[in-house]
């Protein structure tokens, strides 16, 4: 069991019989009053978002999930197609089920598909992925600092903040847990 002090981003638990993922949370407490934890959750079966406020001390059942490695094949309409490389069985997930993960999928990439009660419900991309910048403003030569960021569009369609020296065509490493730029990769 979890309780409200365990709540953090990406925690998975069962709420009303449905596995949920914590997308955001906020500790709320009137000065000398009872504490609450406000949460924004994603229903992991449907991908829909919901908001719930728990009072401190409430307990939740852990969501027992299993991850199996699968290969991402290609997007097909609103679905994303994955394949078990041993059994060649294919499965489909929707954009909503993938959530942020859809931003980092490249054809042929090996990913962890999440199963709950034998049902595929989501995908964990590798912690670090290397993607090509297809659109960004020109950089400032000599500026190797990482303090100031500018927007860049990646080959998968995702947007990310990058340092000023990154140019179009550069390959960069992204931390998929935070969606943040890590470093430029030499090719």
């Amino acid at each position, binding site marked *: 069991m979890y309780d409200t*002090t365990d709540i953090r981003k990406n925690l998975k638990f069962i709420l009303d019989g449905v596995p949920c993922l914590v997308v955001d949370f*906020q*500790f*709320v*407490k*009137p*000065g*000398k*009053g*009872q*504490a*609450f934890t*406000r949460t924004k959750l994603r229903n992991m079966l449907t991908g829909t978002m919901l908001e719930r*406020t728990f*009072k*401190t001390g409430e307990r939740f059942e852990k969501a027992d999930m299993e991850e199996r490695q699968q290969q991402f094949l290609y997007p097909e309409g609103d679905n994303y197609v994955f394949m078990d490389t041993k059994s060649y069985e294919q499965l489909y997930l929707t954009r909503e089920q993938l959530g942020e993960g859809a931003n980092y999928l490249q054809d042929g990439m090996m990913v962890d598909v999440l199963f709950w009660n034998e049902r595929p419900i989501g995908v964990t991309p590798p912690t670090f992925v290397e993607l090509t910048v297809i659109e960004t403003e020109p950089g400032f*030569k*000599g*500026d*190797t*600092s*990482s*303090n100031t960021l500018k927007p860049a569009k990646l080959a998968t369609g995702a947007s990310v903040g990058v340092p000023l020296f990154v140019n179009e065509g550069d390959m960069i490493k992204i931390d998929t847990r935070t969606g943040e730029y*890590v470093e430029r990769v030499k090719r």
Partner: protein
Amino acid sequence: MSGPPSLASTLEPSIDSVNARPPGARVRFGGRVTARDGTSARIEDAFGAVIVTTGAPPEEGTLVVVDGTRSASGVLAGHVEAVGAARVPFPRAGGEFRALTDSGRLRARGLRARAEVLRGIRAYFDAQGFLEVETPSAVLSPGMDLHLTALEVRGIGAERWLVTSSEYQMKRLLVGGLSRIYQTGRAFRADESGARHQPEFSMLEWYRGFEDAESVMRDTEELVQGLAIARHGTATLPGDEGPIDVTAPWQRLPVSQAFESLAGVDMWQVLPDEESFFRTLALVIEPKLGRSRPVFLTEWPASMASLARLIPGRTPPVADRFEAFVDGMELCNGFGELTCPVEQRARLERDRAERARLGLTVHALDERFLSSLEEGMPPSGGNALGIDRLVMLLLGAQDLREVMGFPQDRI
């Protein structure tokens, strides 16, 4: 401080002070190389950056002392001496330099704003004839409030807890004959962590003996107004939903009226169900308070204030307690103080029994505090204000952790 130039150092205190010097001025300063090309380097510290033109710039991460002349756009270096180096690629993600300089140097600015706030607090209270005092952090009884959890301290020999507020000790000083006292200290509250809560935080607490709650509400207004003017030039704070005019006086809004006008419910009907009361307050009412003008919530139900006096002649009983809200956030909590030793003991015993019933730590009564009230405490107004939250409001920051040097996740 003005006076003759100090001989202690010939170095500029920070790079933004280098940038404030006129062209042609001789400057010496320390800093870090954060970018370079063939003929120039950017030298940076937590507060600023300057482009230094120099022969062969040292590599990124090098700590340097620069001797040069201020030019129109930067510094022409006569001499750049390397005095230290980074052993990791610089700046390191999650490192100390990034911690202070990320998000437009938010944390560095927060540390400066905090120092400014502390100076402003001292200037205000000193000018009003207050005495700055210090009271212990580790005490016998940390308070009996049902919704505060204290941290235990071991090793002093007797049972000790970190203060959740310094009220007992400061009231003993009032009994002892000090009438205007303030302190800026640390308060500790376990299990409180989030954008507006940290288990260790800075608190300003002050008392006016022989005066009332209204007098410390006026202090609050004047202090915040003065700090806003000092920082922004006008009595305005950058709020989440637009500018907040903090000009005194602020509205006094009885809690029951806030329940009625902002949540559409009768507070006295909700009150018996404590969870509903706090749910309505925290989730419905508080986010709407103080968005364009700060507001004091006043006249709390008696059960919500164990250390406040009751407002005479009110049924159901109402406590002389107030909280100021700015930008949807509680900034302070104050009382017209309870001075009656018999009533105070009865209330603490009641809270103590309730803590026992809920399975919470049952603290000893602070007998020295209770016995001090028997000597006679003057009628007083007292207030406790979150300094970190005040810094946040002055900077328009959305998270305490951005303006604290060392929030829990950086310890």
